[in-house]
């Protein structure tokens, strides 16, 4: 290239090599690079944000399947008086202070961190008698009972006061006596008490005690406020229960209405003691296999179930048909030094760890179930930290049948909340997943025929002008908020269906019949008349006829109901067929969700059918096939993957539909395929329960699991659909 002649031509641009131009180019280059990085950064971060959803859901859900962690913090010799063996251990709420009670009735409060004793109280200070029996009541009341050799019982509570001097937590333990420090005389004849069970609920106490001469005594104490005297009066009720065998364990439930006795042959007797003066034997069962004997008998929290440990190392749960402190978990120890943490609902061994080589003898759980104190045979105390946030669920309890307390058989139940702490949460997602599938099933039954037939006609037979109108109508249909569909379904359609049920079924018969009748009559008309309406306008022709048939069906509904079903079909169904009818039922929901998914299925299948290359159809028509034959044998066959993906995407939408399900079903989690009954779907359950779920709780995480399930199900449906569609596109472009 020649040097530009500076005199001959003046460029409008600045000189290419001038510093100014170079600077400008550099600046443009920097802008270009900056732009690239910015766009890449922005784009990638949006994509990451989208992917984050799946991982975040997983991150929230995972902890419920994580096994518990048990870590040894310290161990030290048993605190307090070493000479006397331990009878009982307990921990307070913050698990900072422990309590040990030894055989002589001395209570030692100690620091769990190192075993230093902070307070010593002699429970039997007011009585000269020996300690012969001990029992602890409901952990929530922190009640202790000491049985004495002279037939007396001392009831005591261990309590903790938390103060914050200088912003440091200080826990001061104390012992109080709800009925005074003097012993309560249970056996007036002064025999020693060898075994004891006691409960106190803040108002009344019940004591069951076995005397050395094998009498079982029952004593009920109640503080009665008197209007005249200042001193509260003590009302007592007493009775005795005859016993035959050697009793090995006595336990009393929290409500003081049930008493269980275990004997040395492995039988458990269940007494109703609602009336303290007349105890009644309800049942006697063998709880362990022959040859084994009962080694331990305890209540599960809530006082409904009892746990029986036997010499063969098994633990069974029993409850009449009608531990940890506030959950249905329990801890067991055995002679080989193993410590196990279990949960009854989840049917799950959460942790099994061998702490020591020697047998473990005593164990105590902190009220929040986050620490354990265990003493082995050599008098060594181990203080353990327990990280066990979600013991109540397992894969099996979420999807399988679980035998819940007070139920007569294993069941799938979703029942997430209750006010009281002794409630057994029932987290079975099966009925909810069933509800979701039921909704989707009925929705698809309604939507698929209408959407696909409509798509076939619109894409292939309809006149172009009408087609664009139909397509925009369907687009509007797709845009209708589901909350409006749900509201109409729940408040207008559901009551209407209930009062016009025969009419609804009549429409199902009458509408296709009138369409066919019109079609038959149409082809009988002379050609000149038919020519006035061009092809592809059948849909417009049919509209008034269909409106007429619907009106006719609804008008005939009342007389039909009177004539055939005694004037009330829902009632007739219940009486004659045994079918329960709910106003907000699957029929209503199916139609509403069907209405919501029709546009999706319609649009995608219409696109697929319309996209079938014209060469195929014209070829078929040229060979003499009728339009319908071409449709079925050529077009549908080619477009079938597209229709399949349309159905998949529609299914994904039906599964995730929320507001319609919330508003138009009864939202009861029942598993019944009956079209006249409601259900509770996964999505509705999330929307209804999430706002009141406690952050980080098991309920919270199970709801996230439900969300994750929905996410994956729809993701799988959509991915399949998308892949099929992409292949179809390739196929079309090659044709």
């Amino acid at each position, binding site marked *: 290239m020649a040097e530009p002649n500076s005199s001959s031509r003046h460029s409008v641009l600045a000189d290419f090599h001038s510093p100014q131009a170079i600077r400008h180019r550099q600046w443009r280059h920097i802008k270009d690079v900056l732009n690239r990085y910015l766009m890449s950064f922005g784009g990638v971060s949006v994509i990451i944000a989208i992917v984050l959803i799946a991982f975040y859901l997983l991150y929230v859900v995972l902890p419920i399947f994580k096994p518990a962690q048990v870590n040894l913090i310290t161990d030290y010799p048993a605190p307090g008086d070493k000479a006397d063996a331990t009878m009982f251990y307990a921990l307070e709420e913050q698990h900072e202070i422990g309590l040990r009670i030894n055989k002589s009735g001395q209570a030692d409060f100690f620091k769990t961190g190192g075993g230093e004793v902070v307070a010593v109280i002699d429970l039997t200070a007011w009585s000269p008698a020996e300690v012969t029996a001990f029992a602890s009541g409901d952990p929530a009341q922190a009640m202790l009972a000491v049985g004495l050799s002279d037939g007396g019982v001392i009831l005591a509570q261990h309590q903790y006061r938390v103060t914050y001097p200088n912003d440091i937590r200080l826990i001061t333990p104390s012992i109080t006596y709800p009925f005074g420090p003097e012993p309560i005389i249970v056996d007036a004849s002064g025999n020693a008490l060898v075994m004891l069970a006691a409960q106190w609920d803040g108002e009344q106490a019940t004591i069951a005690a076995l005397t050395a001469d094998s009498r079982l005594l029952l004593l009920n104490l109640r503080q009665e406020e008197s209007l005249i005297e200042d001193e509260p009066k003590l009302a007592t009720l007493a009775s005795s229960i005859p016993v035959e065998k050697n009793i090995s364990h006595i336990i009393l439930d929290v409500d003081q209405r049930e008493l269980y006795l275990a004997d040395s042959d492995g039988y458990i007797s269940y007494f109703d003691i609602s009336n303290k003066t007349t105890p009644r034997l309800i049942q006697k069962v063998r709880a362990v296999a022959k040859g084994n004997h009962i080694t331990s008998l305890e209540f599960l929290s809530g006082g409904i179930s009892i746990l029986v440990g036997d010499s063969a190392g098994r633990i069974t749960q029993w409850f009449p048909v009608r531990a940890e402190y506030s959950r249905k978990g329990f801890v067991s120890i055995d002679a080989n030094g193993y410590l196990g943490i279990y949960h009854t609902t989840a049917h799950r061994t959460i942790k099994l760890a061998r702490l020591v080589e020697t047998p473990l003898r005593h164990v105590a759980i902190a009220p929040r179930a986050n620490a354990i104190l265990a003493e082995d045979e050599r008098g060594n105390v181990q203080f353990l930290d327990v990280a066990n946030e979600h013991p109540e669920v397992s894969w099996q309890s979420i999807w399988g049948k679980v035998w819940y307390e007070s139920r007569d058989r294993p069941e799938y139940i979703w029942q997430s909340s209750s006010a009281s702490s002794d409630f057994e949460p029932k987290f079975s997602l099966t009925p909810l997943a069933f509800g979701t599938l039921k909704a989707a099933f009925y929705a698809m039954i309604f939507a698929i025929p209408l959407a696909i037939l409509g798509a076939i006609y619109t894409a292939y037979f309809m006149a172009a002008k009408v087609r664009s109108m*139909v397509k925009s109508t369907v687009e509007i249909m797709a845009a209708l908020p589901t909350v409006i569909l749900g509201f109409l379904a729940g408040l207008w359609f559901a009551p209407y269906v209930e009062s016009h049920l025969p009419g609804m079924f009549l429409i199902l018969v009458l509408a296709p019949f009138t*369409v066919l009748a019109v079609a038959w009559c149409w082809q009988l008309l002379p050609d000149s008349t038919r020519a006035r309406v061009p092809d592809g306008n059948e849909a417009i022709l049919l509209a008034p006829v269909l409106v007429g048939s619907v009106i006719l069906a609804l008008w005939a509904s009342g007389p039909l109901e009177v004539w055939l079903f005694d004037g009330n079909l829902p009632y007739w169904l219940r009486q004659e067929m045994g079918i329960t009818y709910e106003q907000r039922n699957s029929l209503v929901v199916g139609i509403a969700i069907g209405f919501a998914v029709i546009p999706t299925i319609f649009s995608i299948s219409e696109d697929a059918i319309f996209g079938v290359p014209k060469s195929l159809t014209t070829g078929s028509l040229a060979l003499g096939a009728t339009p319908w034959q071409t449709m079925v044998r050529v077009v549908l066959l080619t477009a079938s993957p597209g229709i399949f993906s349309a159905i998949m995407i529609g299914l*994904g939408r039906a599964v*995730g539909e929320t507001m319609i399900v919330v508003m138009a079903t009864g939202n009861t989690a029942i598993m019944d395929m009956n079209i006249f009954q409601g259900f509770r779907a996964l999505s509705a359950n999330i929307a209804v329960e999430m706002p009141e779920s406690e952050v980080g709780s098991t309920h919270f995480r199970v709801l996230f699991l439900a969300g994750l399930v929905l996410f994956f199900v729809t993701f799988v449906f959509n991915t399949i659909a998308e892949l099929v569609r992409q292949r179809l596109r390739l196929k079309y472009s090659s044709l």
Partner: protein
Amino acid sequence: MAARLKQWIESGSPFIWLSAGAVSILILMVAGLLLLIAVNGLGHFWPAQIASFAYVDDDGSKIQLAGEFADHELVPLARLPETDSRVPPGQTSVDRFLIKTGNRDFLGLDFRWVLGPAMSNLAYPDEMMAVERREWGNFYGTLVEIKDQTISAGPEVDLWEKMQRQIADSGRIFDQIRHIEKNLIGTINFDMERLRLRERKLELLGIMEAAEHEEISRQGVVLQSRYTQLTDELASLYEQFNRPRFSARLADGTEVELPFASVVHTYRPNSMTIFEKTRFYFHKLWEFVTDEPREANTEGGIFPAVFGTVMMVLLMALIVTPFGVVAAVYLHEYAKQGPLTRLIRIAVNNLAGVPSVVYGLFGLGFFVYFVGGNIDELLFPEVLPTPTFGTPGLMWASLTLALLTVPVVIVATEEGLARVPREIREGSLALGATKAETLWRTVLPMTAPSMMTGLILAIARAAGEVAPLMLVGVVKMAPALPLDGNFPYLHLDRKFMHLGFHIYDVGFQSPNVEAARPLVYATALLLVVIIIVLNMTAIRIRNTLREKYRAAEQQ
């Protein structure tokens, strides 16, 4: 005949007709649904005639009832609990009317079903008046006299006119009271809370300087004195407001006394002309859109819900547009095309199909509790333990919906980018423009309409979405709008009301569903109209766009 039928079936023609029937049904369903919403939603505001009639009650006693006809049905006799002597023999079904009797404070219920045959002497007396009240729903009766008026009217003015004037005056006082309570006292409370937080912040930072604390307490005293002054003013206004009363006669002849304080307006529909009714109708329609709800959302307007929806959608649009466009540009222009981008496209497409409630879950867990909780700890430690951003609110709702709608924008923008002819890009590059310049000066401007389409579709979707909002920030009754006169004016942390949720809440959670139903229809109509208009716009833009490019391609 049989042969002809066989031939007819073989030709497949009946199936074509059946599929045409399916299309017909679809169109009829959509039209019917829109018609249903429109009729019910718009009909509610028309002043209905008040009927007065004698009625034989269930127990055989004769009573006089008055009210509006709300519904009618034909009931088969078998559905009635037992044989009724009031029904003439030989009939199989009977007319049943739902009467809106109003007067909930005197009758206990607003609505009652009456049997047609038991009604007699039906009349529409001119002097029957309907009183819309701030509590207890409508009142129906005849005016007797007015007591303790606050304005004086000459003797030439008749009783009805006097009442109208008094209502106007009471309304004026009511507006004053509301202004003081909501705006003036609201600002004082807001400032006081700010002072408290400032003090708490100083405490947290360990600043003990006396000057600061003194300044705060001085300002507190000023606010307190202003507050006392306002409460005094309020007390005198209330005294004026509560004094005037009127007495009216119920249908059964008992005379009752009602305060003007509870009256919104009164009208006598039976004596109104068509012109007056039309005016009244539009007045009511306007009131519905611009007024605040009354009586647990079952009466009055829906302004806060409209406002909340608009605010949320605008914020969402602000967030979703740049992110969606940047992601689409990256995917289409910068990323290397290959299996990975294909995978990403599938993922983005799929996300449009993920149930919205799952987005709500994510928003609640990630945005509200995780991000919001951390923001609170870092920026608003003085407010804790009351959460500021660690609780559902406007910002999180907008963000969640932005995430929900970002695939729509990405897909639409990418489609637009793909439609820009290759020659235009190449031409620009050949002229020496950098890639960035090509993008900003030629490609993106050409894509603008499709971005617009994507954005409108996103807005339409966001406006109708309810399930995720239930988790991340919508409430049935927000105490204050997210936009007001107190610094920083836009309160992103506030909860808000939403049209869609309003429909759900009023239709399903309100204590008096029957009374609230027309209002729900009207709300639904408003929402449907907004969404249809948005969608039509998007469809319009898209279609003209297609035409434009088709023209460009053919050149």
